[in-house]
């Protein structure tokens, strides 16, 4: 975990460098006699440099007293990827096919992947939940959910 902390510290410093570069190129538009839009970013990035340096120093000289499982396992990695892809596909598909058609499929895939096996339960939940959310958001709260491009 020492190695992880050192990598983290270096990553943060790299990020700080990127942020400083962006801050340097901020457009200058300001009222007289006052701080500009770059002031706060400079303060923050300085804090970030100091803290990252402290993290590095602490890890190198004192080791770290924390006990964390620092590894993201393969299983977790694949479920993170699965979640991200699923949500993105869900959102994109909703724009084309509409909330009412896509949501049951989204729910079914999710339920099956979490371990639901009874098809009655899966079908019933997915349709009722879709319809319930639709009624609650669109009919009661007048939030227009995507209807899809083909309709």
């Amino acid at each position: 975990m020492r190695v992880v902390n050192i990598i983290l510290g270096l990553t943060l410093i790299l990020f700080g460098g990127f942020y400083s570069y962006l801050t340097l190129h901020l457009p200058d538009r300001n009222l007289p006699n006052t701080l500009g839009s770059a002031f706060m970013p400079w303060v923050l990035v300085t804090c970030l440099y100091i803290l990252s340096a402290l993290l590095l120093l602490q890890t190198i000289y004192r080791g770290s007293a924390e006990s964390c499982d620092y590894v993201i396992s393969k299983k977790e990695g694949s479920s993170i990827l699965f979640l991200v892809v699923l949500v993105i596909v869900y959102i994109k598909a909703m724009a084309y096919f509409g909330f009412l058609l896509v949501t049951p499929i989204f729910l079914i895939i999710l339920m099956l992947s979490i371990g639901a096996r009874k098809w009655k339960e899966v079908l019933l939940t997915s349709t009722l939940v879709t319809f319930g959310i639709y009624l609650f958001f669109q009919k009661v709260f007048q939030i227009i959910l995507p209807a899809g491009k083909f309709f």
Partner: protein
Amino acid sequence: MKKRNLSYLIIVALTIVFSMGFMPQVSMAEYPTKPVSFLIPFGVGGSADLMGRALAAGAKDTLGQPIVPINRPGAGGGIMYTALNASKADGYSVGWNSTSILTTTNIGNVPFKYTDFENVCRIGYTAMPIAVREDAPWNTLKELIAYAKNNPGKIKIGNAGTGSGTHLTAVMLEKVTDIQVVHVPLGAKRRVPSCLGGEVQVICVPLPEAAPQCLGGQMRLLAVSTANRDPKFPEVPTMKELGYPVVMDLFRGISVPKGTPQNVIQKLVVAFEKGSQDEGFKKIADKKGFNISFQGHDAFEAYLIEQNKNVVESLKLGGLIK
């Protein structure tokens, strides 16, 4: 067991059929055949939102389809105008604009101009008055200006945000009277409390925001920014009649994406004109100090050209654009 399976199936099937019934129908009939989205550039609960929702409710019967308010707040209105600009020009996305359509597009944060929209109609406008606390030593705008002349940099004028209509009004006043003031972008939440608390001596706000305090006797209006006196506060002079050539309205109206068919625009004009006469809308507008003054498509476009000139000029004076 078989029976229960069947009943589950029936429930699922019924639900699907029922939800299909709620889906918009596909048809090629005349506009409008489905609900119209009404984009509001500010957050839920503000003046723009409340009036927009009332207007939409008033116009929907004439249009023949529901007009659904959708809030797209952020970036001083820039988010909504960007969304509207990217929408299909089919009349199903309608924007509830305001003076922000001129300020956001001129300040350079979005890559289009107000002329990239069809500006359908104006619903009305309100003044942006100069207001002070009840116990302030100045009884007229003239006295305030005279004080500011002798004490450059002493007067602080609060506004709703840099580049907003209220800021630009104050900038115009500063430049035409050749005084030097500090502009404080207090924002929507802090403008009135800051003035009551004495943090700034003067504020320039849309009239509705200061009206409760003026009627309640905590604040006074020194002048309004409109061309004519406000019917709600007829005793308050306009800046123009005091000899300062500053005319700036906070207007609200309707815009749609460029390329929307003319017959659709005409339908929207008719519907929103009717909506502006709706009792519910009139009630809110009246209480909010908003003057309903309808302008059709051509009149509104002409009005915008004139207002845009003011905005560009004051943005230049304020050093916000070159």
